[in-house]
Structure formats: C-alpha cells, structure tokens
C-alpha cells in the first residue's frame, strides 16, 4: 500500500470521527454516531497492519510488521478486559468507568511518547522533544487524576474535597518542579529526566484532583478527557500521523466546550473548579448533628397526600438509582396518571453523578420521554404543584444554593421544590447529600419525610394507593 493511500484511509477515519461527534450531539442520531466513531477507529487500526512504512532514508520495508504476535496478543488482552467491563457495569456506576477508560487512554499516550523518545534517542528534533514532554506530562496527569476521580465516585475514598494545611504550596511546588524538569528534558535530553518528569506528573495529577469536591468531579473527568485528546494530537505530531492529530484535536476541542457547558449547567465557574486546588480552604467541621424536629410520615400518609393532589412532580436523584427503584417509580407515576393526576419528572441537569445520567437511568426503566421535564421547564410550575416527591436527591433541591452565599453549592441552579404546596422526601437517613451540605428544606413544616430504602418505600406507597 502506498503512503498516499494509507494517508487517505487515515483521513477517512478522521471524517468518521467528525461525523461521530456530530451524531452524538443529537438524540436521534446519537447511537449511529457512536457506531460511525467505532467504524473510524476500526479502519484506522486495521490499516496499519497492511502498510509497511519505509525507513526514514527511503528503504522500503516488508510486511508483516515486526512484533506482530506481541501486538495482536496485547490487543486481545485489552479486549478481554475492556469489553466485559463495559458490558457488565451497572448504569449507576458508569461515570467512574468512563473516568477509568479515560485514564488508561492518557496512560497509553504517555507510554507511547516515552517509547518513541527512547527509540529516537538523540535524533529527536527540539519540536519533537517538546511534543513528547507535553504528552508525558498531560498523559500522566490524566492517568493519575482519573484514578482519583474513579476512587471518589466509587466511594473508595471520601467524596469531599481533600485539603491539607499548606496544600496549595505543595501543589504549586509540584507544578513548578514539573515545569522545571520539562525544561531540563528539552535542554539536556536523556531517559532519567524523562522518567522523573513522568513520576512528578503522576504526583501532580493526584494533588490536582484531591481538593475537588464530589459535585465537581464530572467536570474534572470531562476536562481530563479533553487533556487526553490533546496528548493524542501531540503523539500524532511525533509519530507523523495526520489521523492521530485530527482525532486528538477533535476530542481536545469538543471536550473543552463540553467541559464548559457542564460547568454552566451546574452553575460553576470553570476557572474556580480548575484552580479550586489553589483557593480551597480547609472546611470547618460542620456542626454536630443537630437534634431538630422533622416530620416523618408513613407510606399511608404519603398515599393519601398523593391521592388528593392535582399535580405531582417527581424529583429523582442518585439515591433512586442506587435502590434500583426506577421501575417502581414508573409504576407509581402510571397509577397517579390513571387517577387523572398530572405527573411530571423534574430532572436536574446533574441529577445522578453526571449531566444526563438520570435521563439514561429513567430511559432504562421505559419512562416516556414526554414526562421528563428539564429544570427550566419545571421550575415555574412548582407554584401550581400540590406535591413534589424528592426521591434520593438532596443537593439539587437544596435552597442553600440560592440563599447561603459561601456554601459549596452556592450559585448552582436548583429545582425549586420548596415552592410546591407539599414536599415529600424519600430518604434512607438524615445523612446530607454528595456535596456534604445540610438541607434546610428537611426541617420545613410542609415537608414530610419517609425514611427507608427508596424501592421498599415506593412499593408500600403504591400498594397503599391501590387500596384507596
């Protein structure tokens, strides 16, 4: 195969990636878009096996490419790990899997850059060394940062910001060291400085993500995703592959826009999230659990309240997904609709653990799309709503986001359930939400709490309602 044909096929893969991103931007074409992306990646990968790249002095080489057994074996292992993980993961745990996949991609890019650097030796041009340094630094940050986001989402470690005294100086110091060693590699070349650089970058990735609070984690995943894209583009430069430059740049650019859109949906400033590490102050330990009266009710009380309502808004949160109660909540909604009650689901943009996560989970339970109302649609209707049922959500309905400047979620748009005539919270306990903030609404006189597992509680409410 001539170099021209090889490059042309690479270009067609690049076009597939553009069409994939375009397709993924609209609900109708999203699935097809993803498949086009997979097609592009398959074409790009398959073609290397049929192209013998000439030596740099022009001497032709022959097929099959060297180390073919190792290459195919490694791909088989990767497939055997990746496919079952992707097939078996529960939809509730999907955000952390995406974080993990992104991390290993960043790690792969860093390894590719290191190997290419080893084999180029002193023949590397300054531009190539700079691109290598960039790939190693950003790839390693993406790798270790993603591992930390994975651990936060999997709750293997605390979801709260981890801040230690003098933390910002440690982070700033590490960053200075990374930049210094980067300069050292460019000037002095050599394997040892590059490995030191990789180690420092891994450390920086950990320090960079630790102070990020639970609610901001999705933004960081999206940002690290864009980072990994840029490392792929830089590798494309070093390896002289136009396809990799196009693919990496597309992901880098679209990932940056996506990160900004997510930050806007959550009412966070991107800058604040990024440099949270430098501004975060150790949080004061929140006051000991106050013994304040709350009004808790029985499933029968809830059923009666619902039975005489004209309009009910269901606000699902991550707790609903954890309890696997999507199907039960749909049963409840169907029952209410059969009684002539107006029912809508109020979906906060970041309900669940990632923007759009809750829509995926409810779609899994076959909830009709028309009943899902986005925040801007549903908020003005809470005034005419008799009952708002909050199931396993907390932060997204916490009025503190509007009333308490300085609290971690201040400024985040919320579902204004406090405007409804009655609010019912289905909760496992009085434990605060993912962001770790007390919710005043729980103590409001018009609020009724139904403690217990969301699925068990809903099942009881459904049977009580059937009996009325």
């Amino acid at each position, binding site marked *: 195969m001539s170099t021209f044909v090889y490059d042309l096929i690479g270009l067609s893969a690049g076009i597939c990636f553009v069409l994939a991103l375009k397709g993924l931007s609209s609900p109708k074409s999203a*699935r097809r878009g993803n498949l086009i992306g997979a097609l592009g*990646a398959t074409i790009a990968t398959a073609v290397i096996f049929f192209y013998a790249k000439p030596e740099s002095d022009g001497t032709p080489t022959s097929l099959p490419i060297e180390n073919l057994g190792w290459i195919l074996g490694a791909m088989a292992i990767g497939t055997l790990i990746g496919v079952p993980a992707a097939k078996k993961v529960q939809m509730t745990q999907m955000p952390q899997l995406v974080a993990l996949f992104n991390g290993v991609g960043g790690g792969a890019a860093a390894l590719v850059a290191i190997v290419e650097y080893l084999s180029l030796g002193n023949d590397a041009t300054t531009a190539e060394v700079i691109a290598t340094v960039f790939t190693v630094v950003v790839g390693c940050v993406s790798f270790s940062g993603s591992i930390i986001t994975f651990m936060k989402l999997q709750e293997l470690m605390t979801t709260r910001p981890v801040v230690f005294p003098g933390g910002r100086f440690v982070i700033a110091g590490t960053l200075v060291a990374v930049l210094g060693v980067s300069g050292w590699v460019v000037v002095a070349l050599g394997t040892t400085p590059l490995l030191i650089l990789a180690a420092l970058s891994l450390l920086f990735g950990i320090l960079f993500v630790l102070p990020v609070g639970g609610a901001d984690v999705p933004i960081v995943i999206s940002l690290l995703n864009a980072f990994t894209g840029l490392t792929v583009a830089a590798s494309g430069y070093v390896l002289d592959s136009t396809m990799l430059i196009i*693919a990496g740049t*597309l992901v880098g650019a679209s990932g940056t826009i996506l990160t900004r859109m997510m930050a806007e*949906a959550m009412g966070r400033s991107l800058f604040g999230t990024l440099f949270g590490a430098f501004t975060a102050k150790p949080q004061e330990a929140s006051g000991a659990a106050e013994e304040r009266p709350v009004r808790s009710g029985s499933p029968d009380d809830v059923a009666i309240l619902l039975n005489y309502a004209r309009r009910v808004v269901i606000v699902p949160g991550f707790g609903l997904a954890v309890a696997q109660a999507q199907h039960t909540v749909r049963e409840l909604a169907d029952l209410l609709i059969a009684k002539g009650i107006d029912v809508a689901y109020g979906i906060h943009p970041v309900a669940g653990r990632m923007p759009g996560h809750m829509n995926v989970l409810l779609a899994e339970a076959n909830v009709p799309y028309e009943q899902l109302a986005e925040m801007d649609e549903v908020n003005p209707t809470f005034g005419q709503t008799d009952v708002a049922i909050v199931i396993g959500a907390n932060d997204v309905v916490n009025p503190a986001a509007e009333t308490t400047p300085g609290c971690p979620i201040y400024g985040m748009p919320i579902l204004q359930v406090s405007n409804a005539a009655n609010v019912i919270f289905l909760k496992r306990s009085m434990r605060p939400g993912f962001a770790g903030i007390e919710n005043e609404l729980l103590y409001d006189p018009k609020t009724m709490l139904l403690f217990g597992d969301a699925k068990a509680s809903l099942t009881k409410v459904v049977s009580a309602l059937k009996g009325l």
Partner: protein
Amino acid sequence: MEPIAIISIFVLAVFVGFEVVSKVSSTLHTPLMSGANAIHGVILVGAIIVASHSETNLELGLSVAAIILATINMIGGFVVTDRMLEMFKGKKKEAK
C-alpha cells in the same frame, strides 16, 4: 510534514471540534463525553506503530502495555457508549 500543514490541520480541527458540539442538550452530555473518550482510544494506532519498531525489551514491554491500555480505552469506550444510548431507543419508537 511541513510545519504549516500541521498547524493548519490542528487549527481547523479545533474549529470543527468546537462547532460540532456547540449545541448539545444536557441529556446527551454523558454519552457525548463517553463517545469522545472512546475516540481518543485511537492512540492504539500510535501504540501499534511504536511496538512495530521496538528494538529493545524495554521498548517492547512499554509498548505492549500501551496497546493493552489503549485497546481497553477504545473498545470498552465504544461498547459502554452504545449501551448508554441503547436506553434511549424506547422513546424513538414512541416518536414514530
């Protein structure tokens, strides 16, 4: 390759990347992120290229590790994105 050609490709790809995702409803943020994540798994191509000209055991070992990681990223990424999007199927039927 000419530096100006590389810079042109890069700059134009940035604009295309900005444009194609500029209007996406929050419903699709997660699948879009996951799909873009799978696309950067094509670093697999880079990993295979470096593996094919690895001469020392160190180089080969590192590039084999890179291939494993990149394959997980690429194939796992596309499969999990497809699973996510499969759930939106139900509503398409109703739209018809």
